[in-house]
């Protein structure tokens, strides 16, 4: 600290002065950078979201502001029910993921079993798979005359098909998608508990079960809650999976339908905006609640901290077999997604038979020949967003990790908030803020697409960059500065190369998440700007050929999988990469 202040005073060596202008020091760089970061956030987050909130108070008949929309929302039994049903869905999804994840996380974190790395990777896969890809696969496999029902009927186990879509199906689908978040949170909890505490319980004579419920479980609560909030909030932001499952009376789905199909009915549009704002309010509220609660409740105790990896247990033969069985079961359900998408993508007219009968490459030919634009757009928009994300993310990570510039806490807060903020809200807000007649018509240019991706997905990069910064010893940078290098030069020649690994993983995570984004893009795209996810949605929504949509989903899964493998290789294991992604949408 002393060192740094000294440097600021005597202004470094001649070298730095020659290469880098005086204004850099004169203007207190961190203040300038902080101001710039805040300007970006004000312009691209605060300004559009404020307009959205204001719009939710606009009365359709007069165009003035008032509370009528909210009154209508709470007095109209329909809207109130969508709200209640969304809460119910959230609760059920949370319950299901918790029940599924408790043993799974325990097995993965505590038991040293052969092949567990592979299964860990597999169970974490849904975190990077687009939710809608899973939904498509589910519809094909578990539909009324999908593979599952047809096989059961062939084997004579049932006489009439079971209805596995609808609300219960939605609960299972969303739980499956969110399972990794829960598993990761619980694994974090299990591995961070001081082994001494559990050992003490055992020495005192507590059985395995008793130890789990009296020591392990209470100690894992804060970590669990961090995952639980993400899981609970997902149904408040996901509109597409319910739509594919035919469940429309949920808050985000109602919001999407009302806004996207309002036609000339302005009231419908405003009610849609109210729904979006309500969903966002729930997300922000729950997020704030969690933050204050966890900060107050963190069990630090007298624990001396733990080794990475925590305590491992050698299970008995029976427990080992049961563990394998359970992990196989979960992995098999998850594997249904890529397998079914592949079957459907490489076939046509696959209906009313358990497996396709007509194999073809036609779907992929069509995607590449006629829908090459989609792939091009996806890479173009994601690429540009990535450039924005990396330059801005590095700057913010630097501010957070290395300076005491004012407004740091706020920067971090807004960024983590974007993880839980509904994509529909961002899309509608952008359309409202950057269209003709409301100021800056950015949305008439394609740049709005990468901008929206940048705003939504920045946290994924920022987390990685921030973590990398924290691991980088500041004395290395200070040494460079003492030796006379300016701040920017130090950053470029010392920090960046050392941060590269962490940054690279962040780049890939950002890319994966931006590549599959649809909730925001669906509101902003115009003819010619369609991305792969939008093409997929439109093919499902308007088209007759399910195979093309499946082929697109399969293609996305492949791209994501390759990127993930690269990230895991560079980032030192799948788990580390998954940490970066845990906290999405």
């Amino acid at each position, binding site marked *: 600290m002393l060192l740094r202040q000294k440097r600021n005073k005597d202004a470094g060596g001649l070298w730095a002065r020659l290469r880098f202008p005086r204004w850099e020091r004169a203007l207190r760089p961190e203040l300038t950078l902080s101001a710039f970061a805040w300007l970006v956030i004000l312009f691209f987050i605060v300004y559009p979201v404020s307009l959205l909130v204001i719009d939710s108070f606009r009365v359709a008949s007069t165009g003035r502001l008032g509370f009528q929309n909210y009154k209508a929302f709470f007095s109209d039994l329909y809207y109130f029910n969508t709200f209640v049903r969304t809460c119910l869905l959230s609760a059920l999804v949370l319950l299901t993921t918790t029940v599924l994840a408790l043993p799974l996380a325990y097995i993965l974190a505590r038991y040293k079993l052969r092949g567990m790395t592979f299964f860990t990777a597999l169970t974490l896969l849904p975190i990077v798979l687009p939710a809608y890809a899973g939904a498509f696969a589910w519809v094909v496999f578990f539909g009324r*005359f999908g593979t599952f029902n047809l096989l059961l009927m062939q084997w004579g186990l049932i006489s*009439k098909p079971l209805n596995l879509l609808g609300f219960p199906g939605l609960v299972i689908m969303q739980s499956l998608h969110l399972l990794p978040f829960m598993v990761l949170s619980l694994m974090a909890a299990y591995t961070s508990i001081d082994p001494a505490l559990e050992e003490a319980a055992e020495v005192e004579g507590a059985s395995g079960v008793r130890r789990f419920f009296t020591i392990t479980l209470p100690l894992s609560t804060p970590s669990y809650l961090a995952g639980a909030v993400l899981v609970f909030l997902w149904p408040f932001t996901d509109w597409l999976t319910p739509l594919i499952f035919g469940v429309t009376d949920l808050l985000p789905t109602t919001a999407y339908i009302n806004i996207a199909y309002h036609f000339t009915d302005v009231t419908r549009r405003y009610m849609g905006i109210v729904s979006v704002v309500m969903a966002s309010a729930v997300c922000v509220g729950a997020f704030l609640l969690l933050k204050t609660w966890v900060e107050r409740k963190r069990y630090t105790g007298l624990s001396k901290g733990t080794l990475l990896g925590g305590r491992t247990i050698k299970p008995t033969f029976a427990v080992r077999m049961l563990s394998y069985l359970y992990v196989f079961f979960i992995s098999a359900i998850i594997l249904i997604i890529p397998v079914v998408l592949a079957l459907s993508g490489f076939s046509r007219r696959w209906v*009313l038979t358990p497996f396709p009968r007509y194999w073809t490459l036609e779907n992929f030919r069509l995607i590449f020949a006629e829908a090459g634009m989609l792939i091009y757009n996806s890479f173009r928009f994601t690429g540009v967003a990535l450039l924005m994300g990396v330059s801005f993310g590095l700057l913010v990570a630097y501010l957070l990790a290395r300076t005491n510039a004012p407004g740091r806490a706020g920067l971090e807060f807004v960024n983590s908030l974007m993880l839980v903020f509904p994509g529909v809200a961002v899309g509608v807000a952008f359309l409202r803020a950057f269209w003709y007649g409301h100021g800056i018509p950015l949305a008439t240019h394609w740049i709005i697409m990468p901008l929206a991706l940048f705003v939504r997905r920045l946290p994924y990069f920022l987390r990685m960059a921030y973590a990398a910064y924290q691991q980088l010893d500041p004395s290395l940078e200070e040494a460079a500065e003492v030796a006379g290098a300016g701040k920017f030069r130090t950053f470029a020649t010392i920090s960046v190369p050392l941060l590269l690994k962490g940054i690279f993983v962040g780049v890939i995570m950002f890319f994966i998440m931006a590549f599959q984004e649809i909730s925001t893009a669906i509101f902003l795209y115009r003819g010619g700007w369609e991305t792969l996810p939008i093409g997929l949605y439109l093919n499902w929504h308007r088209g007759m050929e399910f195979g093309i949509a499946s082929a697109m989903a399969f293609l996305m899964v492949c791209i994501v999988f390759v990127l993930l493998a690269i990230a895991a290789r560079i980032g030192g294991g799948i788990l580390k990469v998954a940490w970066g992604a845990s906290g999405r949408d």
Partner: protein
Amino acid sequence: MLALVGVVSSAQQKVVWIGPIYKELAESLTRGFKDYYLRTYGEPIEVTFIRPGGWPVCVDKVREWGGQPDADVFLGSGAPAHRLLQNLGLTVPYKHAHWEAIPAEWHGMMVKDPDGYWSAFAPWLVSNMYNEPVLNMFNLPVPQTWEDLLDPRYRGLVAMCLPYASGTMHEVCEIILQYYGEKDGWAYLRYLGAQVGRWTTGSTDTTHMVTRGEYPIGIAQPQMNAMVARRDGYPVGNLVPNVTILVPESAALLKNAPNEKNAKIFLDWLYSEEGQKYVLMGGYFPARSDISLSAWAAEGITMANHAINALGGKDNFWQLELELLNYDLALAESRWDFVNKYFEEEIYRKWDELKNTLTQIEQVEAEIKRVANSRDVSEALALVAQARALFGEGNLAEARATAEKARAALK
């Protein structure tokens, strides 16, 4: 050289269409017209097709342009859309070269505008769709009439969307309301609502549900959807109900069209025999009364065979024998928004309650039937009939209470 390129590109021939037609038709027409233009005028033409959504959205878009449109031709949608455009002064009359080949009216419904504002290029009937193997698996017959659809055995097996999400679904509501009268029409729609197993996001989504076999019956389907699905190998059939209307899918010239000359060339081509073939190959029925599908089939146009099958062996769409509803277009126009809103509020949003109430009434009826031989059930029967009437009026709480009274009267 650069200057030359500049001249050529600025002189590039263009035509822009806006409308709600399906992608496949737009692609077929683009292909055909580009080919025709190059062949006839010796230079290429650039075709742009804008499809912002269903027809209300398309009309909104044209209205937004305020008389200075970015398109030349309004391509697709039936009489209501074109009447609206005409009344707003957004289209101009143009009698294309084959005007006489399009019938003026058919079973009492207009097929073209007498003043030349619009004319049908691809007619179709509002119909429903069914998936035969799936109905077989449930041991259910194919429903033939609107009444058949209310059979409790079809409950939960019907897919349909809201009238605001699809012009075709709106027409279904209007057909029902005009055929049964407003009071009985809404009662019918409530019963139909109780049959629904899934609300779809639009009529194409419905098509999808039926072709995939997820739901065996889909309400509100353009007639040619089943034809196209069958061509693609799906086991679906077309269900032309006992009462229906014609949708004269039409084209019109927009006022102040930036490429008016090319727009007129396109319209002349669209109604020519060649243009009509591309309509058929795009998955719609051709509109000219002087064409023979079997002759086209003999020429090797495979789609013609599918069309003949879809039309029950007829050689031309207009040879279909059926009776159409005496459709009151003015009435339909006057209550357009009301029908959409009322349907959503009274049927879609009360869906669960509708189903529960109807199930309760049916349970009481079953109880009455069980004891009908052993005692006098006339009071209970009268009460349960009253409950059904209340259900039809949308008085659901009272309907349930009355059903319970009927049950009590049995004791």
